[in-house]
């Protein structure tokens, strides 16, 4: 059992830290009397009917993924450096090809414009269906008053060309809301 003691200790410490953080923020944070209208996004006095989809630029994911790729390269390069002599020529060739693979991926990213961070640049210039601003694509992203919850607007943008009826059948598969067309209907 001795060998597992450090692990147990680690678990206890981690839990304590997590719980402690919560307690601390509760204790140290500014207190105020909260109610629904107060925490609502619009202080207009009208409670929202549904949660808003948080808009989040997809570019941040790309940046994160690019980072991960190069991070991993470094993760591999470091032990290689340590074992350089033992691995000799084979290791060198191996690492060179690994670096080449990552480099090709990098070249692809550059050509796709993943690193063009200036304004006005759009990804997916190859996209077949142009994502145009239309009633479907923008306005209906926000629920209109009176729209039943089951007719939730699409999360994934329907091309303008597919348009009308399909929009009402869009779905948010993870969330418990709509019945997706992909399940069996009973």
């Amino acid at each position: 059992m001795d060998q597992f003691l450090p692990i147990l200790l680690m678990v206890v410490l981690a839990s304590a830290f997590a719980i402690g953080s919560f307690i601390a923020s509760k204790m140290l944070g500014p207190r105020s009397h909260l109610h629904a209208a107060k925490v609502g996004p619009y202080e207009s006095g009208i409670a929202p009917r549904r949660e808003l989809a948080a808009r989040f630029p997809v570019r941040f994911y790309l940046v994160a993924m690019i980072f991960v790729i190069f991070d991993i390269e470094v993760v591999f390069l470091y032990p290689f450096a340590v074992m350089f002599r033992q691995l000799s020529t084979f290791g060198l060739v191996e690492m060179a090809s690994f670096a080449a693979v990552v480099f090709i991926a990098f070249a692809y990213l550059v050509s796709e414009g993943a690193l063009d961070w200036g304004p006005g640049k759009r990804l997916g210039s190859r996209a077949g269906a142009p994502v145009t601003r239309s009633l479907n694509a923008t306005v209906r992203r926000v629920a209109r008053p009176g729209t039943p919850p089951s007719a939730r607007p699409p999360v994934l943008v329907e091309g303008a060309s597919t348009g009308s009826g399909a929009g009402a059948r869009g779905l948010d598969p993870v969330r418990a809301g709509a019945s997706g067309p992909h399940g069996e209907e009973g």
Partner: protein
Amino acid sequence: MSGGTYLVAAGCTINDITGKISGLCTAKGSIHISINYPALVPFFVLGGGALVVLLLSAVLPKRPYRGLWAGLTVAAGVGTVVDGLVQWQQLNGSSVTPVTLGDQLFYDHMGAFFAVLFGVATVAGAAISDGYLEREGLDGPEPYVLMLSCSLGAVLMADAAGFVTLFLGLEILSISLYAMSAYHRWRAASGEAGLKYLILGSLASAIFIYGAALIYGATGSLQYLGVVSFLADNALFQNGVLLGGMVLVIVGLGFKVAAVPFHFWSPDVYQGAPTPFVGYMAAVAKAAGFAGLLRVLMLALPTLESTWRPIIWVLATLSVVFGSILALVQVDLKRMLAYSSISQAGYVLIGLQAGTAQGVRAVAFYLFTYTFMVIGTFAIVGVLQGRGEARNDLSAVRGLASRSPWLAGAMLVLMLGQAGIPLTSGFLGKWVVIEAVLGQGQYELALIGMLGAAVAAFFYLRVALIMFLAPESPGAPAGGAVTLSATGGPGAATAGGGPSDGGPESSEPGDSGWAAGAGRAYSGSDLQAIVTAGLSARDRALALRPPPHTRVRVPAATAAVIAVCVVFTVFAGVSTPVLSWAHAIALPWSA
């Protein structure tokens, strides 16, 4: 526990009790790695192909040549096929060691066989994707890169000699497939498919890797040969960890092959994902999953055979039964084919359940023939559905026999093949797996397999029949409908030799409208009743809609793939070279 082993460097382990150094670091100081390079050629070809496509897409203008990416992918696939065959020749009668790359990979007949299979699937998949992506306006290098890396992962899974390599292959394959499933940008269902596949797939991967860890914990090895030699040398008093690990690994791989009850993802993903990719995925993911499962169960865990065979038995039975029954009530073609592929996986599991060399060869043959049938079928569905995958329901094939007789003929052969009708490779495949379990005295499983095939025959033939329905609206009088002589269709059982007029047998049609009376020609409305039997009222209306009016356009490459698939299905069904080839697989273990 035999003491801890520590990973010193990649593939180099040192046992802290015995001091034994194993793996890559055979001598202290310098590391000698023995690599049998011919074994790695498929990886170079597929991985190199993917990199070439990626690099060219970066340096060439955005739309270089139509078909360039597909062409490169087909070339890489052909290279894999050729190399698989070359490997097979080299392995024939030679005494090449079965493992290489520091015991991480097998270099054997089975690996070569599956390399050919994956190469074929890559060629066919790329060829049918070209026309589809062009039609959908999605053409680009990405799907081909993904397809090649997916095939790479599949070959890795089939060649893996240890759980780490297997997991590596599994992840390469899976991640590529997630992205391919979600590739149809302007179809919400495609995104949903990708997301569902990703989340459930990650769950399955986690289960798998946990199982591998448990097995490692119990045996101290991640290599199949290490596991099996440990289990041969040591009798475990408490093998709970090992058994638990085994179950988790089976579940992880069972997810990939879509065996009931780990199949839930597959209907949704098959329905949503781009059609040609589904055909490719159905062939490759299944074959790769089974290749991994075969190696793990037959090679690493033969000592637990008495425990895993009942598990596989249950999986096989559930898959065959539920796959067939659920396919029966589908009106969406792709969804129906998803359930059909679940039931097909059940047959492969039946072969695996035999746990013999004969069973392994039967599985290999089954998977090889299924590759052609399923890709051919999805190729046809892909061209029929029209732009935007507008029509996927059964009515899309309605009246195809008159609109496009060649396509209808091809579809008919492929449907008959999957139903396991004699003179097709599907029949021979079912025959060999059932023969394999019969050899083990498993009569009940053979019976289940045959009954399942009887049920499955119905929904395959339903597609065939709808193709011969007149393309008019369902309300039209029967006069214009095709009259089918009593000797065809599911009514064959009822046909008999009855005369066509008079006689008492022509008095009443079946009450349920399921089958018309024996011995008289079926009218159009009877036929409609037959083809929609078992469907709910709403689905019935959906299935009997008039077909789309657009002309079916079959791109040349797709037509070639369909032709090859059809010819192969018949060829492998009426002659035995393919079967003999599968039977010639020399296994690296004595089963």
